[in-house]
């Protein structure tokens, strides 16, 4: 039996019928990794022995007839900026090449309580800074649909692993689109939860007011299952929202009749690939045929989102990354005469080009004389963008737009021009600035490459988003397409 492209809910059903064991599934995933990893490079660190031991433990529990959580025995990959106790966590950076966390992120604790099998740590853009996974300090990841193309970033390893059968589910993190953009490029489902809906404790900080952990999955049902497992208030995270977690599985059964979906004009204008625009328009008609009411709307300040984002995100990054100085963990430069010298050389040797560029930009934006002109202004523009989105969401239940403006681009195409790379996130960034939930769902193809739509919801409206995405998915077959590998 070919297990590579089964969904988590299908696998769970097979486990309970004794038609498949967690050990068999885990072995199958590792043999898939062995087969493909030379071409894809989706992982930085594998966790084979512990994964097989965990799978055996789940099999024993199943044999004893224990009542197990829905994700028990499901192979899950974790982005390498999420701390895993005893398992190397590098953020794809040379500065953390040897860091072994002494604690688990809350999401990892929650997954362990759900008896999942942790396969390994996935590749990413260094410190989640990038839109292609070419900025990894270890190796670039390839897109499973066309290995000459990028999988997107920064959760490119997680998206590629799920798309290729190297994992069933994966966790990513999304600061400016880092879950939704690679999900769209790799033809999988990716959800960025509302800021505060999922604990950030143990997520290595890039831009603290924007970062969120979220699921990547092969279909919306799996996405809801993984979100259910990781969502909820965490007293260890002061930015975690004290709210009850909805029943996301029940939310999947939503009827679309009467749901109002806004189609922001600004997202469909200049700069969007005609094939992507066509996919979004088709998706709008599909939702309409299911009973949704589609109307155009406008978000007048959205064109200012990218510059505002890159000033805010880099300012926060320059502060967050000050902790990498070679004193307590990670790389320490040996060529140092004194402490200052050690800081400077450690950081210069340990950080890659994009990280240094962003630290420089953020330090400049926060420095005396420039704070008001750049950082403070960007935070005020953030207010306008948030107001635009919230105003539109008062009128509509959710918004529909492209997840990305083009399908996956070629490796090397944008990496030398940072501004071009930054513009790749133009469709996803506003959601992070406003702290809203957004989901990317496969909705078509362009030249043999996946194209995704994005649905944006009200704060803590993940249940509605999942319901709309599920209804769309179940009425189409895009999510069933798989790369030929």
């Amino acid at each position, binding site marked *: 039996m070919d297990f590579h492209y089964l969904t988590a809910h299908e696998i769970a059903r097979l486990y309970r019928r004794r038609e498949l064991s967690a050990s068999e599934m885990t072995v199958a995933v590792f043999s898939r990794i062995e087969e493909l990893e030379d071409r894809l490079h989706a992982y930085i660190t594998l966790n084979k022995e512990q994964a097989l031991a965990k799978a055996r433990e789940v099999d024993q529990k199943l044999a004893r007839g224990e009542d197990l959580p829905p994700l028990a025995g499901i192979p899950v990959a974790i982005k390498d900026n999420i701390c895993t106790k005893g398992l190397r966590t590098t953020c794809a950076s040379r500065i953390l090449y*040897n*860091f*072994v966390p*002494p*604690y688990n992120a809350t999401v990892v604790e929650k997954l362990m309580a759900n008896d999942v099998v942790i396969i390994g740590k996935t590749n990413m853009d260094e410190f989640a800074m990038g839109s292609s996974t070419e900025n990894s300090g270890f190796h670039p990841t390839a897109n499973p649909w066309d290995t000459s193309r990028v999988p997107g970033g920064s959760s490119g390893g997680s998206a590629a692993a799920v798309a290729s059968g190297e994992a069933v589910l994966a966790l990513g993190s999304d600061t400016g689109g880092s879950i939704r953009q690679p999900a769209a490029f790799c033809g999988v489902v990716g959800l960025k939860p509302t*800021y*505060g809906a999922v604990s950030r404790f143990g997520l290595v900080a890039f831009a603290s*007011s924007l970062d969120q952990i979220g699921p990547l999955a092969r279909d919306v049902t799996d996405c809801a299952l993984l979100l259910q497992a990781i969502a909820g208030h965490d*007293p260890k995270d*002061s*930015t975690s*929202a004290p709210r009850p977690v909805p029943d996301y599985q029940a939310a999947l059964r939503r009827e679309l009749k009467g749901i109002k979906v806004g189609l922001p004009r600004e997202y469909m204008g200049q700069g969007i690939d005609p094939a992507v625009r066509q996919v979004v328009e088709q998706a709008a008609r599909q939702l309409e045929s299911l009973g949704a009411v589609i109307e155009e709307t406008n978000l007048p*300040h959205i*064109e*200012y989102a990218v*510059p505002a984002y*890159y*000033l805010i995100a880099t300012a926060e990054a*320059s502060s967050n990354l*000050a902790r990498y100085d*070679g*004193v307590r*963990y*990670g*790389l*320490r430069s040996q060529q140092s*005469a*004194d*402490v200052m*010298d*050690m*800081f*400077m050389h450690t*950081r*210069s040797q340990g*950080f890659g080009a994009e990280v*240094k*560029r962003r*630290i*420089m*930009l953020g*330090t*400049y934006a926060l*420095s005396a004389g420039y704070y008001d002109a*750049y950082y*403070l*202004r*960007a*935070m*005020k*523009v*953030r*207010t*306008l963008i*948030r107001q635009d989105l919230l105003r539109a969401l008062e009128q509509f239940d959710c918004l529909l737009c492209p997840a990305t403006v083009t399908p996956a681009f070629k490796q090397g195409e944008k990496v030398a021009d*940072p*501004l071009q790379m930054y513009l790749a996130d133009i469709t996803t960034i506003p959601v992070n*600035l*406003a*702290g809203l939930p957004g989901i990317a769902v496969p909705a078509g193809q362009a030249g043999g490459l996946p194209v995704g739509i994005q649905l944006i919801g009200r704060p803590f409206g993940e249940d509605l988003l999942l319901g709309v995405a599920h209804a769309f998915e179940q009425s189409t077959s895009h999510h069933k397409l798989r790369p030929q590998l």
Partner: protein
Amino acid sequence: MEQVEHVALLARLALTPEEKELYSRQLSAILEYARKLEELDVSDVPPTAHVLPLRNVLRQDQVGAHMPPEEALANAPEREENYFKVPRIV
């Protein structure tokens, strides 16, 4: 170039001459693009630093379990007893 050197010092980065030249060019282009924000009148707009209305989230000030020194120091590049060791400061 002088400004790049000053910012690099603030950021504790020792840049090579090639990096200084590259960042000077790239950061100028990015900041030029960021000037787009000047098109907007934001004089009456409050800044958003954070999207959640959470304020002063504090826990009880109680003694609890903590990480043993051995674990806390396990990743130290260099240590001496229960201290992180660094090059001479003074």
